[in-house]
C-alpha cells in the first residue's frame, strides 16, 4: 500500500472517530423506542415533535436571542478597539492587548464564577438570567471579534488609504468609502464567531442562569442527569444545525476564508 493510501486510511479512521458520535446522535433521535440503540430499530419522529415543544423551543429561542445580542454588542465594541490596537502605538497598549485577550486565556468557567460572585455580593442577584448572561457572553466573545477584525485591518494593502488621500478624501471619507467596505468580511466573520461561541457556551452560562432563563446548552446538561432521552438527541442535532446553517449562509454570501485560523477558542 503506498504511503499516501496508508495516510488516507488513517485519516478515514480519524474522521469516523470525529463524526461518529454526532452521526450516531442524529440516528438515535429517529429511534422508535426510547433506547439508545444503534443502528436504530424502527423509525419515529415523535422525539423530534417533542424537540419542537415549548419546553425545548423556549431555551432554543433564548439562546438564539442571546447569541444575536452578544454578536451585535461584541462587534460594536470590537470595531473601535481593533482599530485602536492595530493603528496606534500608545503607552499602556500592551496592557490593553492583554486585557482584551484575557478572556481567551482564562477559563470561561472562572469568568462565570467571578461574575456570579460580583452579582451576589453587590446584591444584584436579580440580574441573573439574560442580563448577566449577556454581559458574560460579551466578555468571552469580544476577543474573537477583535482578533478577526484586527486580521482584516492588518491585511489591508497599506497604500489604499494613501491613494484615497491623494485623490482628495478626508480621513472620515476614506474610512467610510475605502476601509470599512474592505473589512466588511472581517466584521461579519467576527460577528459570526461571536454568535457561535455564545450559542455553544456552557461553562460560563452554567453560573449565570436562573429558572426560565437558561440557554439550550445548560438545559441539555441539566436534563442529562436524568439519563438518556431521545428527545435530547433531536434537540442536540438542532443545536448543531443552527450554527452550521448560519456559517454556510455567511460563507456563501460573504466568504470566511482565512479567518478560520483566527477562530480558535474554548471548549
Amino acid at each position: 500500500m503506498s504511503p499516501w493510501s496508508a495516510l488516507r486510511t488513517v485519516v478515514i479512521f480519524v474522521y469516523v472517530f470525529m463524526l461518529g458520535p454526532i452521526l450516531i446522535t442524529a440516528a438515535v433521535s429517529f429511534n422508535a423506542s426510547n433506547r439508545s440503540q444503534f443502528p436504530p430499530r424502527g423509525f419515529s419522529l415523535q422525539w423530534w415533535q417533542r424537540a419542537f415543544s415549548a419546553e425545548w423551543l423556549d431555551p432554543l429561542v433564548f439562546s438564539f436571542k442571546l447569541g444575536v445580542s452578544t454578536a451585535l454588542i461584541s462587534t460594536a465594541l470590537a470595531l473601535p478597539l481593533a482599530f485602536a490596537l492595530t493603528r496606534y502605538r500608545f503607552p499602556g497598549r500592551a496592557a490593553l492587548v492583554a486585557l482584551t485577550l484575557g478572556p481567551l486565556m482564562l477559563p470561561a468557567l472562572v469568568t462565570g464564577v467571578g461574575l456570579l460572585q460580583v452579582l451576589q455580593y453587590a446584591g444584584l442577584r436579580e440580574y441573573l438570567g439574560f442580563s448577566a448572561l449577556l454581559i458574560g457572553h460579551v466578555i468571552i466573545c469580544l476577543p474573537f471579534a477583535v482578533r478577526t477584525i484586527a486580521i482584516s485591518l492588518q491585511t489591508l494593502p497599506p497604500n489604499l488609504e494613501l491613494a484615497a488621500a491623494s485623490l482628495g478624501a478626508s480621513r472620515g471619507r476614506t474610512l467610510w468609502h475605502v476601509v470599512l467596505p474592505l473589512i466588511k468580511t472581517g466584521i461579519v466573520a467576527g460577528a459570526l464567531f461571536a454568535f457561535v461561541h455564545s450559542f455553544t457556551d456552557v461553562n460560563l452560562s452554567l453560573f449565570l442562569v436562573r429558572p426560565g432563563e437558561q440557554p439550550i446548552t445548560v438545559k441539555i446538561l441539566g436534563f442529562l442527569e436524568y439519563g438518556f432521552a431521545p428527545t435530547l438527541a433531536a434537540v442536540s442535532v438542532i443545536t448543531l444545525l443552527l450554527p452550521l446553517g448560519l456559517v454556510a449562509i455567511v460563507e456563501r454570501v460573504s466568504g470566511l476564508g482565512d479567518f478560520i485560523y483566527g477562530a480558535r477558542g474554548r471548549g
Partner: protein
Amino acid sequence: MARDHGVIGSAAPEAARQSARVPWLLIAAPTVVLLLFFALPNALLLSASFVKSEAQQLTNEVTLDNYAFLFSWSLYIRAFIRTFIVGLSVGLLDVVLGYPLAYFLVRTRSRWKGLLIALALAPLLASVVVRTYGWYIILNRFGVANDLLLGLGLIEERIPFMPSTGAIIIGLAHALLPYSVLTIMGSLQGLNTNLELAAMSLGASRTRTFLNVLLPLSFPGIAGGFILAFSIAISAYATPAILGGPATQMMATAIYGFMTQLLDWSIGAALAVILVVCAMTLAYAAARLGAREGAL
C-alpha cells in the same frame, strides 16, 4: 492562541498614524466593559480566595487556610492529579490523531479539500454538551458500544464504560481534536513541500524524512496543539460532568460543587485561582513557542 498576539500584538506602523496619543474615543467603551466585567470579578475572586468563609458568607479575615485545605484534603489532591492526567492524555491523543489529519488536509490536492477541512472543523459548531452527549449514547451501559460488543459476542456482561476517567479522556479528546488539527495545520502550511522531496532524494525513507525534517520543523505546531488541548481540557466542566461522576472529580466540577452546592466561596475561589494560574502558565508556554515559529 496566545500566539495570535502577533496580529494584535504588533501595531502596523502606518506613516500617518504613529501618534503616541491614547485614542480615548476608540477604547473608552470596550475598556470600561472589560475592566468592570472581567478584571474586577477576577480581582474579587483572587481576594476572596484569601479570605475565610463562614456560614456561606465571606468574612474579612485574611487567611491562607483555603489553599492549605485544598492542598491537604486527599479528595482534592486526587482531583488535581486526575485533572493533570486527563489533560496530558487528551493533549497526547489529540496530537497523535490530529497530526495525520492535519498533514493530509494541508497536502491533499483533492477537489474536496475545502469540504474536508470544513468537515474536520464542523464539530466545533456543536456545543461541547452535544458532542459529549454523543459519547454518552455510545458509552453508557445500555448504549451503542455495549450493544456492539455483546452482539459480536466479545463480552457476556455489559461493561460500565462510564462514569470513568477513561470515558472523560475519550470525550475530551474527541471534543478538542479540531483545535489541535487547526494548530498543526497552521504550522504545516508554511512548510516548503520541496523539503520532503529533498530529504527523500538524499536517501531518507519516509519515516526518516518525518523524523529528521517534518517533525523538527512542525514542532511548534505540535507543541502548540498539545498545549491548547491540554489547557482547555483542564478547565473543562461539561464533559467530566456528563461522562464522569462523584468519584471522578476534576477541578472544574469541584469548583462548580463549591460555588453552587457547598456555597463555600472562598475555597471555590481558591480552586479557581489555582486553575487560572495553570491556564496562564500554559498560555505563557504557548506564547514562547510562538516566538520560535518564525524559524522558517
